[in-house]
């Protein structure tokens, strides 16, 4: 250990900053794998993989008396242990001999993208951590440039892991996901049934793989929006209801009712191939036939009014009617305003 300290101190004298010295170059802590191992392991699988992998690399470099690399890998293990997230070493910022650096730039882009991908991290965090460690190993060996076998070993380990990540990280071809409710609130959910097995998805962005990959699937909001961009963009506007109430025994469309009709007409104009469905309701008390008749008259007046507003708008279809006796029964007893309504549904 004394010899290590001496060599380390000498190695540091020329290039260490004051901070690095403070961090332990002079007392040996900078490359002490033991002290880094004493730090608690993070729960996050990506950070745990970084910590474990960098500690192993630090130990290997230490055994080869490569103090700088040992310190760098140990430092990365400490950062991961402390919960810091960081990407791989950038080969573009290092002096790497051209022959030794072949393939590094492409690999750097790929692993960096996976590290930044929320969805990939949800499905392959540990593997991405392991691949990042192997990539950094590859970069460091390539930087030295002369140990061909070591370069190949790190590169091969990286490439083995990245093949696995490509499979794990992408969204499966066959899947289902619950989307957020347009008006907010909790979704009722969907039940997936396959071969006697069932999965309930009942929260926004709860997802499952289907077919061979049948099972819960962690997904990120952004990747779902990308994966279903075409279908999401084509969603028709939600249907909208406009409620018009009438005075008892009246079919007069007052100013408030007319305003609602104008709003419904404007909404219909904003929709391609709009449908306007006018339905009249009536009081449950009194003579059923008379109630039905007034319900029909109200619906007819409202339908005529909105149709007049939309007379110059092409491709609007109308449906109009009064609720039948069966529906009248379910209305609240009494002369509540709610019972004397006409509903305009626009979709």
């Amino acid at each position: 250990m004394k010899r290590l300290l001496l060599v380390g101190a000498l190695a540091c004298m020329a290039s260490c900053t004051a901070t690095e010295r403070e961090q332990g170059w002079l007392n040996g802590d900078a490359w002490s794998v033991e002290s880094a191992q004493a730090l608690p392991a993070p729960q996050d699988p990506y950070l745990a993989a970084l910590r474990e992998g960098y500690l192993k690399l630090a130990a290997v470099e230490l055994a080869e008396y490569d103090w700088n690399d040992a310190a760098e890998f140990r430092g990365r293990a400490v950062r991961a242990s402390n919960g810091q997230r960081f990407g791989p070493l950038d080969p573009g910022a290092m002096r790497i001999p051209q022959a030794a650096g072949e393939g590094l730039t492409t690999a750097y882009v790929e692993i960096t993208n996976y590290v930044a991908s929320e969805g990939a991290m949800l499905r392959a965090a540990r593997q991405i951590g392991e691949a990042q460690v192997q990539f950094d190993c590859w970069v460091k060996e390539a930087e030295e440039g002369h140990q061909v076998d070591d370069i190949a070993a790190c590169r091969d380990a990286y490439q083995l892991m990245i093949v696995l990540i490509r499979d794990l990280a992408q969204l499966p071809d066959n899947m289902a996901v619950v989307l957020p409710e347009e008006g907010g609130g909790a979704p009722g959910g969907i039940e997936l049934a396959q071969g006697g097995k069932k999965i309930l998805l009942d929260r926004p962005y709860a997802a499952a793989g289907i077919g061979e990959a049948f099972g819960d699937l962690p997904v990120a909001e952004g990747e779902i929006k990308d994966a279903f961009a075409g279908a999401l963009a084509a969603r028709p506007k939600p249907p909208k209801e406009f409620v018009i109430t009438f005075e008892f025994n009246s079919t007069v469309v007052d100013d408030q009712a007319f305003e609602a009709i104008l709003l419904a007409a404007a909404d219909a104009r904003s929709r391609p191939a709009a449908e306007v469905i006018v339905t009249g309701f009536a009081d449950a008390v009194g003579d059923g036939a008379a109630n039905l008749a007034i319900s029909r008259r109200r619906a007819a007046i409202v339908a005529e009014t909105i149709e007049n507003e939309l007379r110059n708008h092409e491709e609007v279809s109308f449906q109009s009617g009064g609720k039948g006796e069966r529906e009248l029964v379910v209305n609240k007893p009494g002369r509540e305003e709610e019972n004397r309504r006409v509903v305009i549904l626009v979709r």
Partner: protein
Amino acid sequence: MKVLIRHISGMIGVILILAGLTIDSKAEDRIGMIKVVSGDATVISKGTETPAKAGTPLFEGDIVRTGDNSAVGMTFSDNSRLSMGPKSEVSIESYAYSRPGRKDSFDARLKRGSLTATSGQIAKSRPLAMRVLMPTTVLGVKGTTLAARVGGDA
């Protein structure tokens, strides 16, 4: 002005007969309508394939297909909605809403591609009565919006 008037199914309603209106004899069987089309899309109805456009009516048994970079959105009489992404095929295998003698139900089969589905009155009154059928899996809708895709051998 093209206006289609029809009696609301299951109700004793008035039919507003207005001058110059045409009454579509098939309107009673119509279950939905294409609302949004981008790119190339077709509807196959009773074996006849026609280009899909906003306003194209949909009937039980219809098949809707989209091409590359195309999408379609449609609404149904129970206020449920479907939309499809590119290179997709969806068939409306069964649909019944407020039909005498039939329980409310809605089965849409996603053969390939992607869709979103927002449930309406059918799933509200009968949870799981709206279903998206996929090659190996049945999605029963309990009242929600979902997205699904079939790109492999599921």
